[in-house]
């Protein structure tokens, strides 16, 4: 049995930054494993651990060679092997929209034939939140979006995932989803493990298979999306807040006065 988990290296922006052309100047970016994907990786590894059968956990990434560092983190936490999709045509694509990503991942699903696919709910950089569900529909799998609880016991054997989907306003929807399926995983669903030293060492020898479009039976048309980024700017600050100046003591003193005026702290 097999669980495929998609992982993405995302760019995180420093507090102060500059925009260069249509993106943030790379000097102000740091790269990390997408927060939602960390939980998806943990869920995948827990499913494998909970199963009596032999379960392989494979990760799939769309990203340049640099992203192998992120992929190694997933391998160190229990992913068995990884697939990394990239080539010059993908690099040249102006904006990888949902449909383009789905075409790439669809080819991986066809090759790997997993029983279950896990993705993060969204990526912290682009925030589209759509790839998992679109992928499920493309490959004819069932799906569940924004899963924040998953009973890991018996999912793969029974072919049914008992999940909670986190709705707005503190309400969970309880749903049964037939496998094969794609689940998009919400933060907080589990406690992602730290990579052990042994895991980090083992990760070095695990396979990260690079795949070009041609390896997946695709050509440059696969990444010819229909969305184009045309502008990027810092939103205008709308703040009309009263700011308190001075050192921390002075700021606290002024704030205390304002709070007391509002009746805070009065016995």
């Amino acid at each position, binding site marked *: 049995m097999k669980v495929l988990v998609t992982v993405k290296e995302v760019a995180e922006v420093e507090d102060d930054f500059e925009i260069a052309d249509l993106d943030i100047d790379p000097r102000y970016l740091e790269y990390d494993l997408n927060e939602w994907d960390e939980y998806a990786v943990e869920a995948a590894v827990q499913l494998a651990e909970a199963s009596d059968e032999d379960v392989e956990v494979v990760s799939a990434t769309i990203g340049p060679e640099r992203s192998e560092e992120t992929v190694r983190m997933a391998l160190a936490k229990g992913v068995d092997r990884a697939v990394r999709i990239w080539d010059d045509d993908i690099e040249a694509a102006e904006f990888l929209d949902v449909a383009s990503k789905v075409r790439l991942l669809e080819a991986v699903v066809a090759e790997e034939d997993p029983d279950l696919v896990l993705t993060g709910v969204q990526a912290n950089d682009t925030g589209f939140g*759509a790839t998992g569900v679109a992928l499920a529909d493309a490959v004819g799998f069932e799906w569940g979006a924004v899963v924040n609880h998953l009973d890991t016991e018996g999912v793969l054997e029974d072919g049914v995932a008992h999940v909670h989907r986190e*709705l707005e306003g503190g309400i969970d929807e309880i749903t049964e989803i037939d496998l094969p399926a794609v689940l998009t995983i919400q933060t907080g669903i589990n406690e992602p493990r730290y990579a052990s030293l042994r895991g980090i060492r083992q990760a070095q020898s695990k396979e990260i298979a690079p795949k070009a479009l041609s390896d997946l039976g695709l050509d440059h048309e696969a990444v010819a999306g229909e969305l184009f980024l045309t502008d990027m700017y810092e939103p205008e600050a709308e703040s009309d807040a009263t700011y308190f100046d001075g050192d921390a003591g002075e700021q606290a003193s002024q704030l205390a006065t304002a709070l007391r005026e*509002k009746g805070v702290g009065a016995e």
Partner: protein
Amino acid sequence: MSPDVLAVAEHRRGDVREVSYELVTAGRELADATGGDLHVAVISGRIDEFTTRLDLEGVDRIHTVDHGEEFNHDVYTQVVCALADELDPQYVLAPNSVNGLDYAPAVANRLGLPLVTDAVGIEYDGGLTVTREMYGSKVETTVEVDAERAVATIRPGEWVTTEAIGDAEVTPFEFEVDESAVNSEVTGFEEVAGGDVDIADAEVLVSVGRGIEEEENIKLVERLADALGATLSSSRPIVDNGWLPKNRQVGQSGKVVTPKVYIAIGISGAVQHVAGMKGSETIVAVNNDPNAPIFDIADYGVVGDLFDVVPALIEQFE
């Protein structure tokens, strides 16, 4: 293709959700620009009641499909695709909600249309341009859609609503759901924000966010809450880390709170958090990033290190 817009309303547990009314506004604006009609789809639940509530100024036609009590993404995907085949609208709009994101991507895939999610602005000038945020709301972008037709989801809270009653034509949409393609079943709901304290009742909330860095540092903010006679709440990452229980979480997926005073400590102000506390009477923000979005909605701002400011504030009140 018609220049029409199809907006898919959302409801839950017998109520039309607010974002449905915002969809009517966004859909009307877009239909005015394309020169088409605004169609609203009402699928499942209390169809008659929902239809009455959604018959608002600007809605041309309401299509109803009576199927089950609650949202089911397999049913929604089938119905919206069938309606889109029948009406051939230029644009399909859905809410950027948990449920919207549970069917809109499948609809876009099945119809072979591009999808833009989480729109905070939509413009049409012979083509669709969507404004949306990236990098955790640090930047805004415009995205041009190079296609005649598209699916878009709109962020809740970005469009005004109208209560003006309309005169829409209501048509039951004759459609047989393929039950063999319904492979998921909603079996119930669970309130997860219960527990010992209801933060929605508090008059003063001291709320802690990711800036607190370590679990043991929560004690510092707890001490401040005690000194102020306030209740302790938090943003999502604190609950995700298991540092505070779920019933303390303020935000879209936690509690919506409207206290007299809301003090946000080390909270950057992600849109999901702001959705849960923007109705507070007075908002105080303490954050070391002067560009943190929380300052946009704050009445009082302290730009500084919370590990200096909070102890100094405790000293003022203890």
